[in-house]
Structures are given as structure tokens and as C-alpha cells.
């Protein structure tokens, strides 16, 4: 599925955020309905091609969302889930919040791409709350996206700044959803999460052996 980036290139570089977004975009099947989470996942939209015919959903009530609005396009009544002004593409539709989340929760979105603090070996996702005792919690639509989409792709750096792996046996941060993540796109590798475990699809600037050494989760070689 991935286009333009061959797998298993231990000599090549770790991916930057834009390269990662391009990789994710290339993996999205033609004709898919997709929700891109706030932050890094939004970059994916820059690499979707017209030939892919991907329709973007925003949970505040729209299918057929176009690029970010600029200049005269800016319309206070047309925003995305991050409250950024966006545009409307031909074939768009508007609906109320319950209908919009019904679309998501009913399993109609093919892919949702989210950021994460941690993902577990069984696909548990932690991306809404660091668990810090003084933090004011806020969840938004994260739990609905995590449990509703047919496939949940996570985009994240594989390690924290302190060097701790974010792919873990069991999440230590509060969960967003249980067993929901199917793929993890990181700067160092792409992981597929399936019933048999976590499979390494490809690596960037590292090797399977190096990854296995640094991550406390048993990995399967592709």
C-alpha cells in the first residue's frame, strides 16, 4: 500500500513529520471516508491526491471538508473540529452533532488518524490525558473517534524526549479506547496491530533488531 517509500531501509533516515504524513496519506484506500485528528494528523490532508477521492469528515457536522480557509474564504460558520476556518468541497453535506457522531460511532468512517501519548501491544490508545494530578481533563471527540472508526491509525514519535518507548505492553496513561488502534505510524517504523501481535511493517533509519531491543513489546518481523 505505501507509495514511494520502500520498506526495511536500515541505512535510510528517520522520517520527519511531513514524510510521515505523506506515508499515511499514501496508505489510505481510494474512496475512503476519513477523519483526521487535531494536530499532526491534520498534515495528512496535504498529501491526499485528487485521484484518491478521499472524503474528509469533521465531527462538528460536515462531510466533504476542504483545505484550511485563507483570506476571503474565512467564514465563522465553517470551521473544523480544531475550530480552524476551513472550506467546503463539491459534494459536501452538513448535519447536526448527533448525526455527525452517529456517523462516526456507527462504524461508517473507514479511517481515523490520531496522535497518541501511548499505544499498547493490543491496540489500547492513550491520547487524551496525561494523568497529571493538577491537569484539567478534556476529552472532546477522541473516545468516539477511537472506538468508532473501522481503522484507527496513530501517528506519533516512537520515543518520548526522555527516550521511553510510546509503544508499550500496557498503557500507563489513562485510556482513550480499548483495543482500537490497528496501525502505528512513527518516525522510526510502521507497526501493524493484529490478533497475533505487533508486526513491524517497515523501519526508517533503524533495524528490526534495534527496535526490538529498545521496545518492551514483542515484535513480529514482517
Amino acid at each position, binding site marked *: 500500500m505505501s507509495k514511494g517509500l520502500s520498506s526495511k531501509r536500515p541505512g535510510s533516515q528517520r522520517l520527519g513529520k511531513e514524510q510521515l504524513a505523506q506515508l499515511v496519506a499514501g496508505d489510505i484506500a481510494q474512496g475512503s471516508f476519513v477523519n483526521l485528528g487535531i494536530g499532526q494528523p491534520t498534515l495528512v490532508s496535504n498529501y491526499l491526491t485528487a485521484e484518491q477521492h478521499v472524503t474528509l469528515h469533521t465531527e462538528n457536522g460536515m462531510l466533504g471538508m476542504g483545505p484550511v480557509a485563507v483570506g476571503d474564504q474565512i467564514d465563522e*460558520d465553517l470551521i473544523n473540529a480544531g475550530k480552524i476556518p476551513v472550506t467546503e468541497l463539491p459534494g459536501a453535506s452538513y448535519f447536526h452533532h448527533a448525526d455527525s457522531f452517529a456517523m462516526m460511532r456507527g462504524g461508517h468512517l473507514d479511517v481515523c488518524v490520531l496522535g497518541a501519548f501511548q499505544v499498547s501491544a493490543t491496540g489500547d490508545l492513550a491520547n487524551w490525558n496525561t494523568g497529571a494530578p493538577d491537569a484539567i*481533563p478534556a476529552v472532546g471527540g477522541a*473516545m468516539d473517534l477511537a472506538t468508532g472508526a473501522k481503522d484507527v491509525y496513530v501517528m506519533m514519535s516512537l520515543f518520548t524526549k526522555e527516550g521511553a518507548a510510546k509503544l508499550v505492553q500496557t498503557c500507563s496513561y489513562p485510556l482513550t479506547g480499548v483495543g482500537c488502534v490497528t496501525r502505528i505510524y512513527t518516525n522510526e517504523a510502521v507497526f501493524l496491530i493484529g490478533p497475533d501481535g505487533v508486526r513491524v511493517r517497515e523501519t526508517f533509519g533503524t533495524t528490526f533488531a534495534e527496535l526490538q531491543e529498545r521496545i518492551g513489546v514483542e515484535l513480529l518481523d514482517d
Partner: protein
Amino acid sequence: MLNFVQSAAEAVAGISDGATVLIGGFGNAGQPMELITALLDGGATGLTVVNNNAGQGDAGLALLIKERRVDKVICSFPRQSDSWHFDAAYRAGEIELELVPQGNLAERIRAAGAGIGGFFTPTGYGTMLAEDRETRMIDGRGHVYETPIYGDVALIKALTADKAGNLVYRKTARNFGPIMAAAAINTIVQVGSVVPTGDLDPENVVTPGIYVNTVVRLDAPARTERERSRQ
């Protein structure tokens, strides 16, 4: 009974202390800012507010919270870069927060309007937001039991009303308006225009007039200016 009033103050005059107030809008889109401001000016207190957020900046809901008129917020995303009034009230222990995943929030409001006593949803299962909640395995999948959120009042914003109270919205400003209109005993709507009955195409009505109690037409506000000048 449907009535048309001349000012936002008149529209919110009946809101009592202790009321549960559903407030529409997501970001600025669909936010009934003039009705919220009138509620602030009207003095009702001890409110429970249901909104996606918990106020931003120094306007509307944020000011209601600043002035401690809100005892409880039910929302999905209170924490924002400019939610300082909520943050302060929360850290001072002077406001209660019921944090609800956004889809559960929407579906619970919808359930209230639709006569559903409760429902099971996978959203939130296995998370701390479902702690101490009833759960059920359905077809091998964990579900959480969720209950309706009823409003005494809904404050919403629509694009146009006809004289029968039918409403249409504009783009993503539709968001919570239609479900809140159905979930509240008393639905108060601010609109940009009122047209004669029969001018809205029956195929395109989003909120039928049966859900609407009070309509006030307000000139399209220069909102950003207004908010700034309020401080």
C-alpha cells in the same frame, strides 16, 4: 406556545435560578452569544450549563462562570488556551465538572429529545470516564450505559426562522442546535432573519417549529468587536 420577542433580554427573562441551560455552538459557530450575554445581565444563578466547552476568553459563558453563576458544567472539552475563568473556578473547587465524550454528549442530548430512557454505547468503555458506570457486553464488545441530558432551557442560534418557528442553520453552525432544541422544555432561538410562514422549503427545514418556544431576531453582530468592547 411560540412567541416572537424584540430583545435578547425579553427572550431569556423566564430563566430561573437553578435551571439547566443547554447552550448551542461549537467554537463561535452557532454560539448564541447575545442570548448568553442577556442571561448574564438577567442575573439567574445556580445554573447547570451544558455546552461543548466551558467558556472562552472574556465573553459569554466564560463571564457567567467568572461571576460564579454556574454551579456545574457538563461538557466534553473545558480546557482551552483561553478557558482561564473556568480553570480558576475549577481549581478553586467552585464549579462542578461532568466531563463527557463529545459523542456521548450529543447522543445523550438527542436521547432526551427522543424519549429514550438510556442507552449503551462503546464510547468510553474501559476508560476512567466510565468508572463506576454500568457496563454491558453486547456482541462481545464492552458498552457503557448513558442517560439523557434534559434541559429546562436551550439557548441556540439559527440562520432563519419562519413565523411557524421552523429553523434552518448555516454550515457547521448547525452543530448542537437541533438536538438541544428538542431536549429542552423551553427553547429560545436567536436568528438573523424571520421570514413569512411558507417561505422555507418543507424539505429543508432542520428544526421543525414544534421544538421552538421563543424567537428573537438580532442583527448580525460584529461579534469580535462586541466581545472586546464588553471588557
